[in-house]
């Protein structure tokens, strides 16, 4: 019958269909990322399908043999099996991976927004409240609470900078990191006695974020120590690991904090009293280490064990040369350590942030400047109204100021470095 003459044509069209599908599948394999396993199996199946139907159609054109017939039938089984298990299976797996990736990206975006709200919006408002409270002679408890909130916000910002910059910065030597952490703890707790013991190679490299963890642990030990706290920091290194222990002479770490260290994550019922210990644990965990607490009558010893590079068999990320750090870390360093006074004010002239140098030039602790009107802290010969008018116009304001000891300083005010926030820079002449 005439239509039977079309049968080899149908097989040939089918073979061509598989062939073109294989060609597209290969292109899709090259152009995709998460979907690569799917398109790999798809292409493999299509190639087999083209071969199968090509052989079937060839039989109709006279290329008949038992062996060929058996081979083409076997190929049919291969194509069907490959499709059922390979293509469908890969599709399901890759689909799950894609959904997981989407969820991860969604959560990352949410974390980013929450972080911004915490460190910017809430922090700004707390700063302004502090200014009002300080100006109106407010309650010490209220001021202390506000300062604690600001400190928590600072730690959250520090954590975010640590996360952002950890893969950009060069490793630091463990001894240098410990000494910097101890110096920082000493600067905020001058009554504390902190002893450092180094056992082994102090030049062993560690991730720069570990210094932040060290700082939190040492400060934690000082804060929870005795009236005149004595803290011993010991660093020891072996071929496989770096061990840091921080021992204090305080009443002992609360049990719920110890459980937090062993559980490893916060829950609504089990959470740290502050962000510092959690931050230290998170940093240690994400650098592949562990942290343990031991409480005795003599005090608490926190021990951090970090695997040395390659010791745990995991690949370490390459550290690019010469990079300074993530955007936030660099600009924060410039703000904090600059030799000029930097003050951030709102449209209403209230101080949102001020570096240490600003406090030095204006004769007050930088934290006491927060939330106050700028006209209350600048020298009297500065026309603040004119500065604010120029900032409103989007213009840079410049001028001179006479400081408390008769020294002169030059200032410039830049509008809208962030929308609604302006920077005033003072440098002594």
């Amino acid at each position, binding site marked *: *019958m005439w239509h039977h003459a079309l049968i080899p044509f149908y097989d040939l069209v089918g073979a061509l269909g598989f062939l073109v*599908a294989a060609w597209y599948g290969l292109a899709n394999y090259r*152009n995709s990322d998460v979907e690569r396993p799917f398109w790999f199996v798809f292409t493999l199946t299509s190639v087999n399908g083209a071969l199968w139907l090509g052989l079937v159609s060839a039989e109709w054109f006279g290329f008949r043999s038992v062996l060929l017939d058996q081979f083409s039938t076997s190929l049919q089984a291969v194509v*069907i099996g490959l*499709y*059922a298990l390979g293509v*469908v*299976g890969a599709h399901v797996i890759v689909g799950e991976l894609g959904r997981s990736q989407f969820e991860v990206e969604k959560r990352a975006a949410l974390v980013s927004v929450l972080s911004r709200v915490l460190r910017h919006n809430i922090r700004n408002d707390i700063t302004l409240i502090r200014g009002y409270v300080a100006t109106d002679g407010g309650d010490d408890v209220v001021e202390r609470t506000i300062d604690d909130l600001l400190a928590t916000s600072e730690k959250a910002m520090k954590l975010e900078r640590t996360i952002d910059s950890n893969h950009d910065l060069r490793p630091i030597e463990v001894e240098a990191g410990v000494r910097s952490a101890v110096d920082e703890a000493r600067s905020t707790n001058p009554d504390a006695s902190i002893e450092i013991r180094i056992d082994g190679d102090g030049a062993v490299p560690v991730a720069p974020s570990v210094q932040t963890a060290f700082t939190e642990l040492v400060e934690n030990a000082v804060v929870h120590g005795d009236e005149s706290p004595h803290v011993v920091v010991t660093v020891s290194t072996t071929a496989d690991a770096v061990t840091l222990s921080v021992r204090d002479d305080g009443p002992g770490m609360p049990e719920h904090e110890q459980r937090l260290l062993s559980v490893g994550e916060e829950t609504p019922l089990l959470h740290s009293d502050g962000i510092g210990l959690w931050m230290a644990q998170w940093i240690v965990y994400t650098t592949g280490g562990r942290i343990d607490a031991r409480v005795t009558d003599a005090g608490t010893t926190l021990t951090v064990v970090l695997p040395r590079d390659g010791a745990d068999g995991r690949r370490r990320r390459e550290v690019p040369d010469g990079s300074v750090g993530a955007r936030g870390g660099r600009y924060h360093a410039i703000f904090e350590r600059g030799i000029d006074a930097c003050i951030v004010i709102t449209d209403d002239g209230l101080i949102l942030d001020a570096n240490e140098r600003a406090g030095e030039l204006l004769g007050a602790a930088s934290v006491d400047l927060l939330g106050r009107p700028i006209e209350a802290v600048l020298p009297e010969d500065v026309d603040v109204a004119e500065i604010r008018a120029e900032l409103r116009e989007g213009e840079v304001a410049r001028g001179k100021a006479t400081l408390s000891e008769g020294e002169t300083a030059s200032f410039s005010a830049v509008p809208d470095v962030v929308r609604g926030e302006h920077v005033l820079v003072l440098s002594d002449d």
Partner: protein
Amino acid sequence: MPIDPSVFTPQELVVLLVAVGGVVPVVVYRRKVSTWVLLPYAFLFLGAVLTNAEHILWHEQLNYVEHSVGNMGAGLAMLVAAYLGRRRLGAPDDENPGVE
């Protein structure tokens, strides 16, 4: 009419077994897999069934359907699935199949 088992070839029976076994993951995950990924298998399954069924009855008719619908349909369905995936990877389109 009793069926003579000698009409079936071992290879074609294996094809049928593989096709029947392959239905399991396809059915289990049918909701997680787009239609254009399921369709080629439907044609392949049809071809596998007909290649055996034609030995029992309607040999010419089923043979014709096996090649025209089963074999050609499978090849064309694969082509369409790959093409739509290519279009999606190059330019996103809500109607495109492939992995969602």
